[in-house]
């Protein structure tokens, strides 16, 4: 029972990381209607920045994370300007391939800068751990922090998209780009803003991912969590914030429980099998709006 609880909490922690990454995917998809495959690599860049600031500049973790957020935000905006903006009107597949090109670029640039040897990531926040049930259930501070960060980000983003002018502009653009433009919304600026937020979240996710489940940082660290988070976004209904949360958490829990009780090798297969089954019964994801076909 205690073991099960421990796996469940680890699952929720991993799921929280997926949820934060999935939010970035989901928001960009909702507004730009593109699958940003380079998103996973921004996580990796974020983690490297945190590592460098902490190890080479010996700064405290919080400043390292802040630096990573700033760098990734700028990186996200620059990538959008240079690579995606010229293709705004093109076929979605062309944008997809460009995103893959950006992903290759980031991975190989990281390879050149930091090399292929793994950087061992010491935890960002080592504050001790929480002991429950007479010390049988130990929850590390990173786990608590990840879950806490996830909740804070979810609440903040929900408020942001619901209450602020920029957030409303984002929702308008995702619903109908043309109509939003006619209402005086600066579509280009809104899209840049979305990329900025997504990339900032990716930086935080990178720091959390490397201090909880994935301590060996290599240039391809971001790709698998990126794919999983994308799956989580689709799982919950792409374009929806609570969907990303539910999708991410479910995915994390299934993965950890699958690893613990079924097989380490098959846990990925299990995650994807659940996704397929969900999509067969709810083709637009758990919380997605069903697509209507017009003739």
């Amino acid at each position, binding site marked *: 029972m205690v073991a099960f609880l421990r796996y469940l909490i680890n699952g929720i922690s991993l799921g929280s990381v997926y949820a934060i990454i999935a939010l970035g995917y989901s928001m960009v998809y909702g507004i730009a209607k593109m699958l940003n495959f380079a998103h996973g690599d921004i996580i990796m860049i974020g983690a490297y920045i945190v590592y460098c600031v902490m190890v080479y500049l010996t700064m405290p973790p919080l400043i390292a994370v802040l630096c990573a957020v700033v760098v990734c935000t700028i990186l996200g905006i620059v990538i959008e300007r240079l690579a995606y903006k010229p293709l705004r009107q093109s076929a979605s597949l062309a944008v997809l391939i460009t995103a893959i090109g950006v992903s290759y670029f980031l991975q190989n640039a990281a*390879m050149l800068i930091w090399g292929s040897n793994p950087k061992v990531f010491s935890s960002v926040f080592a504050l001790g751990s929480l002991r429950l049930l007479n010390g049988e259930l130990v929850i590390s501070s990173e786990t608590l922090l990840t879950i806490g960060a996830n909740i804070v980000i979810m609440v903040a983003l929900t408020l942001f998209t619901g209450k602020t002018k920029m957030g409303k502009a984002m929702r308008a653009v995702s619903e109908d780009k043309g109509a939003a433009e006619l209402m005086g919304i600066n579509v280009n600026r809104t899209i840049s803003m979305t990329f900025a937020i997504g990339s900032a979240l990716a930086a935080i996710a990178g720091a959390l991912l490397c201090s909880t489940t994935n301590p060996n940082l290599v240039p391809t660290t971001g790709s698998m969590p990126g794919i999983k988070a994308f799956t989580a976004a689709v799982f919950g209904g792409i374009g929806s914030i609570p969907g990303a949360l539910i999708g991410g958490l479910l995915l994390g829990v299934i993965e950890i429980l699958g690893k613990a009780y079924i097989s380490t090798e098959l846990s990925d297969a299990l995650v994807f099998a659940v996704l397929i089954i969900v999509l067969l019964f709810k083709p637009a994801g758990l919380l997605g709006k069903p697509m209507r076909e017009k003739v």
Partner: protein
Amino acid sequence: MKLKRSTVDALTSYGIVIAAFVIAQLLISSGSMSRALQGQMIPICVYIVMAVSLNLVVGISGELSLGHAGFMSVGAFTGAIVSTWLLGAFNMENTTLRLLFAIIAGGLVAAVAGVLIGIPVLRLRGDYLAIVTLAFGEIIRSVVNCLYFSLDAGRLYVSFNSPDIPGKMIVSGPAGTKAIKTIATFPAGFVLILFTLFIVLNLINSRSGRAIKASRDNRIAAEAVGVNVTKYKMMAFVISAMLAGMAGALYGLNFSTFTAAKFKFDTSILVLVFVVLGGIGNIWGSIVAAALLTVLPELLRAFSDYRMLVYAIVLILVMLATNSPVLRGLFARLANLLRGKGADAPEKGGISRV
């Protein structure tokens, strides 16, 4: 005798492929092709077949598939097992015959996988369909990672998730295949390309091919005139899976050991890049893009450490140059000037289709 236009086009295609093969063979026998490039010949053939077969799904049938490497994986492992089994159980020494059987088996098993995966996948639309193909690609990779095959006194043993089987291991889970005889040859790759072209070109120009394209262009209209959309989409998907399986078998038999990790998501994406860069729905585009991009990293060797970075930049620039409206308008105006016509030619939208 007057031939149909499609027949003439197909015959020209075969002619060009045969000519390219003869030139490559001459270059190899005269020793003017570098070792590294010679080693790339079989992968080039494999990726051409992969790109053409994926184009059948993405271009002709209009569904984005992100799990094409999964079928390649199925074909590669089937090919390796069948080839070793034929040698061990029947003492079939003739490598050509073994290669032939391995490729056929790889194609058949991949086709069966195509049917099984196609049934759920083709119920979905658009990006959701794409993510499910990605999911199946990853599932195939994980499951293959758990499979163990061994050969003992001519009998084949299989086990799932445990290496306790008698005899000599052929496939051992995450460690991949063991000491497979490398029997793939460049001429075999060439024949496979011809076979693929024969199948795909004939399919495109047949009644079924027109039905597939009609379902792509407008599903509802196609259904309204009585086209069984699911059946034709399935047909394209399964044929594509079969061809990918055959390419996989050839690829696998080019290495003495390989693991399931070779056929992960990146490989699917690599093939998709060939298809999109070559022009979606354009078979010749796929062939040229696959051949060029397979040798490109080799040609970029001068950049040593920076070559993959250069590759990424080339990829982004090509996509921008061919798709950005500003640059495309510029090219169109240039072309018109050269032809002596006025500017302001009608803009063409999107990527060209067949």
